[in-house]
């Protein structure tokens, strides 16, 4: 099977610091790939380079075999490479519905219509409504997102990415700062999504990662030190070495 996203010898340096060092990985459709690693391992940088927020210092990014390393952000989004941010990046002054709607409008079209009313784009509005439904945000749909609870804002963050009609969804710590209940909700959602599209998950909650992922990639100091199914990774000696002494990663060591 052809990978939907692949990177080849991807490099990214910041001044003298190498954040990504020859990262080559393949991401397949309908697969939940998690990327784990200690703080500063380059996980977010990897997502930033794949989605175009940052340029690559070397190497290539491919989408279905086509090189997209120099494509602009919006062009990649139009191809279906969508993401969420570690720190909420949503349209604060707009309502939940409008936040989602702008994303559906962009992929369904109609943005060039200067004198039509927004309500005239029926399909756009219906899809936005169905995504609001899916996220259980009906009750707050017409509230400005700046007045929402943090967990709900986090859902809007995911909702916007969903509304972009993703083929690959890159989620940067979607459960950060969420309650256990909200985390379960998101986890279920992520599992459902992975049945429809390719999902790349950067996550600190190791227990969550181990239960829901199809495959894991472990980054350490910008390079891949291990890759495989969760069971294999949790038995991997290199991985244990990389995290030894870090209590934050204790659950990883306990899973075997």
């Amino acid at each position: 099977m052809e990978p939907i996203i692949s990177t080849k010898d991807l490099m990214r340096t910041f001044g003298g610091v190498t954040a990504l060092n020859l990262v080559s990985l393949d991401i397949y459709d309908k697969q939940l790939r998690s990327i784990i690693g200690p703080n500063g391992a380059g996980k977010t940088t990897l997502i930033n380079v794949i989605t175009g927020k940052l340029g690559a210092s070397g190497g290539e990014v491919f989408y279905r075999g086509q090189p997209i390393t120099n494509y602009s952000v919006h062009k990649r989004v139009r191809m279906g490479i969508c993401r969420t941010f570690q720190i909420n990046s949503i349209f604060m002054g707009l309502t939940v519905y409008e936040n989602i709607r702008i994303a559906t409008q962009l992929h369904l079209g109609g943005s060039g219509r200067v004198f039509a009313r927004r309500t005239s784009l029926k399909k756009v509005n219906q899809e936005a409504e169905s995504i609001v439904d899916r996220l259980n945000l009906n009750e707050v749909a017409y509230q400005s997102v700046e007045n929402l609870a943090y967990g709900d804002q986090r859902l809007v963050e995911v909702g916007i990415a969903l509304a972009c009609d993703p083929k690959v969804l890159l989620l940067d710590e979607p459960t950060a700062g969420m309650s256990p209940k909200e985390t379960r909700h998101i986890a279920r959602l992520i599992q459902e999504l992975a049945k429809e599209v390719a999902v790349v998950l950067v996550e600190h909650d190791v227990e969550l990662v181990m239960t829901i992922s199809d495959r894991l990639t472990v980054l350490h100091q910008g390079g891949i030190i291990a890759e495989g199914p969760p069971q294999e990774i949790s038995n991997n000696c290199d991985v244990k070495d990389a995290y030894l002494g870090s209590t934050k990663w204790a659950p990883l060591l306990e899973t075997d």
Partner: protein
Amino acid sequence: MSNRTNQAPGSLLRRWSGAHPLSLGGFVLVVAGMVVLPLVVTNPFYQNLWTRILIFGLLAMSLDVLLGFTGLLSFMHNSYLGLAAYAAGLFTINVNPESLWLAMLVGVVFTMIIAWPVGWLQVRTGGLAFALLTMAFGMMYYTVAWKWHDVTGGDDGLVAAIEHGLPKVAEEGMVPYLDINLGPWNLGNTSDPVHVYYLVLFIVVVAFILTHRMVNSPLGAVLEAIRENEERASFVGINVRRFKLIGWLVACGLAGLAGTLWMFLERNIAPDTMHAFEGAEVLMMVLLGGMGSLWGPFLGAGIFILLKDCLSSATEHWEIYVGLVVIFLVLFLPKGVAGLSSMLRRKPSENK
């Protein structure tokens, strides 16, 4: 969920405008008031003043499209009024001293031709750099208008350049008055202040309605997204630079429209009008009236110009008092006068 999109069937006018019936009623009332105004205010000086309020209101509204709806700051938006006024004036003097509509078209098109590459450059920067570039270009236009004496007439304005124009115009020594024709019908002449007033009112109302449509359109939704969060906007697939450029061109085109109206009213344009001080005044009008509302800037222009008129006839140091009033309004009405009204209107509906 669906009760939002299934609006109750309303009148054709309401469905077309998509506006709240109260706002629509208010709009019709205000326009009706403006239509009868010259019958009440018969002093040509005040008729001229009201026309200027409408023209500057249009300019302030065009800045609001940029500032309130796209989130971009233009320090010297008056320079685009100036460019259009010079273009329309020069066209009337040198090419065609008869057609008002052609002069208007030339003014707006010329402004947009200048604004296009400038905007192209500006949208490649963000935030403060964008605002500073608008100032740099504004200063450039000002200097050109001031120093290119042979074409622009320099300090004294276009009247000083009349001698180079068509013989017929040069003889008269002024930018000619123009007939207001609509198809075969003659509706008036710009020598009559009332006729100019109605011409300006008509153009302003049409421009307002079209701009209102635009900001409420899917395109307006894109501009709003850019205003709220530029990075996220690109991450939903918006080509941010392209849409910023569209917003910029719309704003400059509308400012240009105001510029051509200015030329019909004043029959002269001098570099003063393109000065940075004037640019700051336009910005104040938008802030006074409230940005992001479209009608607020008209109110702001009205308040500002009337205030300036009253104070300058009472004291030489009117700027100080204008400044005090502006400080007061900015401190106590940060969202402008328009913000006050939406504050009052929102109260009852929140309990729904």
